[in-house]
């Protein structure tokens, strides 16, 4: 978690090898993504902020294309159904609403049956119902053993999905731990208050 511009997406880019670091290394599943791209991304799913799609592509075609990238893809028909997109398979991606497109990008992140998935502000732009649908599915996947790394602005999302949170500010880690640990460390009573406290915005409390 962190403000706009705190470095959340940059952190993901660095871990995934999309950006070269000024210094240091990052490893996922014991490997550096930039050096072991094939092995890493066979096991790691990614939803980047604002993914765009080819013009004139349908939902089903986008799924077919992404499934073709993996050795053992998941059944995308089932994933689409789980995310409430089952009826939209033949629709053009360009005709989807913002929320539907966002859900599709999560489907595509999960299409490779990943052990670990990176979700960058996955529910930004989703309405309450859609957000709950996405949460429900992610919780199920979490229970099945998938690790989720997500960035978010929403406290209730962190509370609903996260075992551990990390708050960053201007590219630096401010605090990290379980929800309880973070709240306790701040001396406040809720995650939102703890967040504002660590961000130095206490006058807003």
């Amino acid at each position, binding site marked *: 978690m962190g403000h706009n511009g705190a470095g959340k997406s940059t952190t993901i880019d660095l871990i995934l090898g999309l950006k070269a670091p000024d210094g240091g290394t990052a490893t996922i599943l014991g490997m550096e993504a930039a050096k072991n791209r094939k092995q890493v991304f066979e096991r790691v799913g990614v939803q980047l902020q604002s993914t765009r799609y080819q013009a004139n592509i349908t939902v089903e*075609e986008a799924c077919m294309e992404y499934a073709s990238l*993996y050795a053992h893809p998941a059944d995308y028909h089932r994933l689409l159904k789980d995310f409430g997109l089952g009826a939209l398979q033949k629709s053009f991606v360009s005709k989807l609403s913002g929320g539907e497109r966002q859900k599709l990008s999560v489907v595509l992140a999960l299409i490779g049956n990943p052990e670990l998935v990176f979700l960058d502000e996955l529910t930004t732009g989703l309405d309450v119902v859609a957000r709950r649908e996405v949460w429900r599915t992610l919780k199920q996947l979490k229970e099945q053993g998938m690790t989720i790394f997500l960035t978010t602005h929403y406290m209730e999302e962190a509370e609903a999905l996260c075992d551990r949170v990390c708050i960053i500010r201007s590219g630096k880690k401010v605090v990290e731990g379980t929800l309880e640990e973070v709240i306790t460390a701040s001396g406040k009573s809720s995650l939102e208050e703890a967040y504002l406290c660590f961000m130095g915005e206490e006058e807003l409390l």
Partner: protein
Amino acid sequence: MKRFLTMYRVEQKLFLRTPDVLIFNLMMPLVTFLIITMIAGGKDAADSGLTYLQSAYVSLSTVGICCSAFMSIPITIVESRSQGILRRMYCSPCSPARLLACDTIASGVMAVLSTFILTVAAVGVFGYRMQGSVLVYIGVWLLTMASMFSIGLMVASLCRTTKSMNVATTVLYFPMLLFSGATIPAEVFPAGFRAVARWMPLGVGIDLLKSVSMGCYDKMAVPVFTLTAITVFCGAVAVKTFRWE
């Protein structure tokens, strides 16, 4: 291979769904051929030794190549890059190169389809018969396609933004289409102009295809070398300077 074909099939469908590809790549050569043939089909095209029908068939068989090389390929690649599609593909076990390969093949298939439609009209309806060897013609046509595609791929690699790509494709596409003899028969140009057309890469291909279509194989060395050199040079620049982001 099966996975590659799945992606190729989707990309090919996307091409067939794009209206400007259908109009410029598939329709334009056919329509131009019908017009030229109906106006002057049986007349001799200047001192070329060909009738306008024979000359137009050869020239227009390269329009599909021109559209694919200087419009489809750079536009598809630069847009996939600027919209983050290649960036997203990078985050998969497959390299973004697969998408580029599928798009290049799909563009090639469009050029083949364009020439096939033209051939059906020319041979089936207007009774066109080639004097030279069809196999040699196909070989030279493929070489012309490879060299034009390598120019298109080089443009896609060198242009970092959609804006610069639009300028580059316009500067390449329209002059090649209009002045290399691909659509307007080079035979109607004044002599000075024709010399310029001959120096354009596509003009080199068209001249070579015309001689092959007449069954003249004695002056092939220089143009074949030129087209091969273009393919090797531009292909190498395209690969060296390519950025997926």
